[in-house]
């Protein structure tokens, strides 16, 4: 646990950066970037989160083990979300009622068009 005291100036600079990034992310939302809106928003969120973790939470000055803990938590969250999404994205590769050898890989926009196709046919 670090004993050294960080200068007030550092905290204020981080604060300023966070506010500016918030303004940017809100502002960018009003510009049409297509799918990049999401990318930009998430990148900015990661930067803001990192600033808070590194400086406000003093992670920059902590032992390696603490970093491992946080990285492990984030990594396993990524596993949960990543593999679940991989299931969602590839479910339609096997068309309902067909043997898997007969399916073809359908174009990506059908992901958004696909609905809940595992429901039994309603009587």
């Amino acid at each position, binding site marked *: 646990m670090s004993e050294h005291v960080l200068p007030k100036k550092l905290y204020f600079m981080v604060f300023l950066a966070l506010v500016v990034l918030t303004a940017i992310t809100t502002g960018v939302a009003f510009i049409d970037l297509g799918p990049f809106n999401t990318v930009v928003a998430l990148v900015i969120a990661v930067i803001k989160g990192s600033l808070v973790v590194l400086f406000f939470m003093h992670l920059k000055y902590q032992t390696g083990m603490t970093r491992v803990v946080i990285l492990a*938590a984030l990594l396993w969250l990524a*596993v*949960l979300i990543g593999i679940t999404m991989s*299931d969602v*994205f*590839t479910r339609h*590769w096997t068309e309902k009622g067909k043997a898997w050898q007969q399916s073809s890989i359908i174009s990506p926009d059908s992901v958004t068009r696909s609905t809940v196709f595992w429901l039994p046919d309603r009587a």
Partner: protein
Amino acid sequence: MSTVAVELTPTLPEVHYLNADYGWRSWLFTTDHKRIAWLYLFAITGFFAVGGLMATLMRLNLIEPQGLLMEPASYNKLFTAHGLIMIFFFLAPSIPTVLGNFLIPIMIGARDVAFPKLNLLSWYIFMLAGSVFMFSVIRGGVDTGWTLYTPLSTTYANGHVLSAAVGIFISGFSSILTGLNFMVTIHKMRAPGMTWFRLPLFIWALYATSVIFILAMPVIAITLALIALERVFHVGIFDPALGGDPILFQHLFWFFGHPEVYILILPSMGVMSELVAAGCRKRIFGYSFVAFSSVAIAAISFMVWGHHMFLSGQSLYAGFVFSALSFAVAIPSAIKVFNWTATMHKGSVSYDAPMLYAIGFIGLFTIGGLTGLFLASLGTDVHLHDTYFVVAHFHYVMVGGAIMGYLGGLHLWWPKMTGKLYPEAWARFACLLVFAGFNLTFGPQFILGYLGMPRRYAVYAPEFQVLNVMSSAGASILAVGYLIPLIYFTWSAFKGPVAGPNPWGAKGLEWTIPSPPPTNNFDETPIVTEAYAYGPEEAHVG
């Protein structure tokens, strides 16, 4: 082997953690990890009795193809309660909270865990959880199966899903806090000289288990909260009629559910390392392999959950990945089995109860693990999913594996915990009864599953009756096998012969302190040199 020959008859220490203080307040407000271990022991034994009673009723019912005792509605409630109680209120706490609580500080040379008051709070939270859950059972129970699949559990079930979910939710917090406590203790409170590779393998296993507690339990907590929300507010998070995806529930549930079963087996594997080392009076073969395999199991276990969902409508391609990884997760477990067996080679093998349980574990866990591979491979799982094959597989690993390890550990460390010896002849007899009864109960179930009998069914086709009756007969033998230790352990605590500090002649910090230990464990901080420091001379004792 009988007790190592000593010059003097061992006597109990004058002051130890059991007689250091008297009165119910000294127990219910204790912060001593050893007393908290006893609090847990009584609690989980009670839950085991309840879960066991349910199993008894189930097996009685299955004597007749049309069900001997009850309607399917009641049977469904029984197997749900049996599963939830055995998993959350017996197996998951068993080794970590009883043996782990008692031994971790002693094995690493500390005076207590990192957060003793949090430790006591964990027990109270556990008792609260059990009370809430038993309230659900008494009010009529839940009939969805322990997996609480949606939309049955959220929309259509008529049972007391909410209180059951709340009970499990609360028990999750108890486990998280225990895991947190253990991790901080193992990281930050080891005695001087106790490097990671001088730790007993039991500690490595419990460390890996604690990592799983930290990462997996919060996910089941939020999933249960979502079930509760959907049930109370009738909103369609998982309901396909409203656009929800029931498979999302299964992903969230099994992301917790699969690591959970490794929570159940890893501590038992840790106990196994201690049993084999003590029972063969030899250093565990391939220490680092066994240590790393615990960590590897914990890590890979988080990536295989989809093998419970091959038939759910999950993507076939995700199924490929899950299947391959499930084969991979078997490897570290196999490494452990090979290493224990190699340890026995040219060791001075004793046939006391702890070692008998260990040998039983090796055989039964191997069968359980190998049959898991049939379930991990997509083609065979299509036929075996939701049959008694699955039931047999997981009982082989959870009962033949985890419970045998737990009982072996109880026997090994009972002299340390109570200062008394249990009667060895009765212990060996009970172990053999357990082994025989267990195999008669669950062996036929592999065949039943292969022949197509579905699980969670109160009635079955008449051609399955012979195997079912065999299974139920085995269950009665198993029950007797579990009852006998209850009796002789209780007897030995009061009337057993005094054990002395090290009745087994084993190595490890716990055997260097008196039995029972003083409240502060060590009078002086121990100096640690090497784990499992068995020399060649130990191999010829006894």
